[in-house]
């Protein structure tokens, strides 16, 4: 008989090893999925994980894409990790990402076509504020009325998508755009452009912000009292109350921080890779970032690595759909599978697997 025995303390070895085991198991399960789809599993996995970085023909194009995709994922996931560690579940990062982009772009476009070096920083601040304000809605409702933040933040994603649609076809539409939906192109207007900073790497301001966020989160979690309070609230809420942690303040700080970072990610995306506010501006970074946060064990360095890996599956997925005609949805299922395996393997962190009969307690 197999049974589980609770460990006195979480295993450090398994805590670090479980993401790796999960990735490995996902590769096997993914290979089986591709085989069922009638593709050569080895070729498919090589196309997804190897070719984007090392293929002689495609790598030069797809390698910079790695940072372009990883930037927003890491930025959002770092923000989410604050709340998730404290047991505050912001799953509406997609909405905050959209609102950051809309508010930032609106501020920029209000100043069009003037040229000033101050416009871009102003837009960055506006983007962060947009995401922050959108996250404050579930935050304030939770603090004031005890409303479930999971449901409210998620509902606000659909609201934000509708605001995005009305912005793209209405009040932010490019007046010189011959009637096509979508705003002016922000990446082509020098004052608002978020260009590649180092040629050939794909690193734009959003990637820089992601790196800064990783360092910031690392310092907060290891050195600052806020990080301690967040961890304490997540692991021992009762102890946190005795230690004088204000739970309401923590809700607002965690949600606000994740909203602001998601808003920043949206702003850097709309001024850089996306270029404009369009109907299909959001591509699900806010949801994938949830996987990134968990895969990275809610740890800043882990999130950095997980973000890069998840970005690789995006690019590799595009390559695989282009070269092997593997449908894009397969990659989405693949990413979901990864999270499942991770959550399953995680049992080893908190429990010891025992074989044989249970002893008398």
């Amino acid at each position: 008989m197999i049974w589980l025995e609770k460990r006195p303390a979480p295993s450090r070895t398994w805590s670090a090893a479980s993401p790796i085991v999960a990735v490995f198991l996902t590769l096997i399960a993914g290979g089986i999925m591709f085989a069922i789809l009638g593709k050569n599993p080895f070729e498919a996995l090589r196309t997804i994980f190897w070719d984007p970085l090392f293929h002689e023909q495609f790598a030069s194009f797809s390698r910079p894409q790695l940072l372009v995709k990883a930037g927003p994922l890491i930025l959002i996931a770092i923000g989410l990790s604050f709340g998730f560690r404290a047991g505050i579940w912001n799953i509406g990062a997609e909405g905050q990402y959209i609102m950051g982009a809309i508010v930032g772009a609106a501020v920029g476009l209000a100043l069009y076509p003037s040229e000033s070096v101050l416009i871009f920083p102003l837009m960055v601040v506006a983007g962060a504020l947009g995401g922050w304000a959108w996250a404050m809605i579930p935050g304030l409702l939770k603090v004031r009325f005890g409303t479930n933040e999971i449901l409210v933040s998620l509902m606000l994603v659909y609201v934000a998508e509708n605001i995005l649609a009305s912005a793209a076809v209405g009040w932010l539409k490019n007046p010189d755009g011959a009637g096509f939906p979508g705003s002016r192109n922000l990446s082509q207007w020098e004052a608002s452009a978020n260009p590649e900073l180092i040629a050939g790497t794909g690193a734009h301001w959003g990637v820089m912000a992601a790196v800064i966020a990783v360092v910031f989160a690392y310092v907060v979690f290891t050195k600052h009292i806020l990080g301690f309070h967040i961890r304490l609230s997540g692991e021992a809420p009762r102890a946190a109350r005795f230690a004088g942690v204000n739970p309401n303040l923590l809700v607002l700080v965690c949600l606000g921080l994740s909203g602001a970072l998601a808003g920043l990610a949206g702003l850097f995306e709309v001024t850089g890779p996306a270029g404009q506010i369009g109907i299909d501006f959001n591509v699900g970074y806010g949801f994938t970032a949830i996987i990134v946060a968990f895969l990275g064990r809610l740890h800043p360095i882990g999130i950095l690595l997980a973000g890069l890996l998840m970005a690789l599956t995006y690019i590799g997925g595009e390559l695989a759909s282009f070269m092997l005609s593997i449908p894009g949805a397969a990659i989405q299922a693949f990413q979901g599978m990864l999270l499942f395996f991770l959550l399953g393997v995680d049992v080893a962190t908190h429990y010891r697997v025992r074989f044989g009969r249970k002893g008398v307690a």
Partner: protein
Amino acid sequence: MDLSSINWLLLLASLMVAATPILLAAIGELVVEKAGVLNLGVEGMMIMGAVCGFIIAVETGSAPLGFVAAAAGGALLSMLFGVLTQFLMSNQVATGLALTLFGLGLSALMGQGYIGIKAPGIGKLDLGPLSDLPVLGTILFRHDAMVYVSIAIVIAVWAFLKFTRGGLILRAVGESHDAAHALGYNVIRVRLMAIAFGGGCAGLGGAYLSLVRVPSWTEGMTAGAGWIALAIVVFASWKAGRIIVGAYLFGGITVLQLNLQAAGAKIPVEVLSMSPYLITIIVLVVISADRKRAAHNAPADLGKSFHASH
């Protein structure tokens, strides 16, 4: 705007059709939460039901078979959640989210070859003289069988929870798994059965979307219905009867905003299409504002993992 162009009789009739998917998903989730499990994967199970039901219905040409397949598909996916949360003690919130993300991806993959096909019809139920009643006949008695099945399920769940021994055990497991365990009930088994029932109901709800309401398959077609179902469970304060009220209220809002769009209301389309979500938030706030009552009604062990130490 021309309000008179809206046929209020037909609007009330289509309200029941619009409400049925969320009604089914919500009553399933109610049973799950009553057993003390918070499954946030309703959206994923619904969309799996939608695609499974659609594929089987198209392949066999039979809508009823499609519904059976949808329930099986939803229940099967929910067992993934069940194994992870009950045996491997994973975090229920995270696992539920994973279920939704995975379900959306897998359903899109499965439904690839079925985009743009029309589902086989399910046919209206002939209720004889009842259907011919003026006004009431149009509103209540001219629907397909699933509308009545969904109401029957709600009544059955209500009776099960209130009057049967099984219902009492299920509620005991949700209120205090340690006490139920000490009394000799198998907490994990009860919870697994509840999760499977919830998955099956969510699957039926999804299939109602793809087979009756729309009726065709598109990626991500549930568009948040599963999340609204979760909100309705909170709105209903975990009481089966109020699930009907909640679901029909939201069905009504959905139908009304669609009718207003069609009637060319002066309100922007985007405002109308975001209204169901906004109203969900407002309702959640109103319900949770009465803190004492909200906390009193929720099952005490909701969302907690159970591990029998000996």
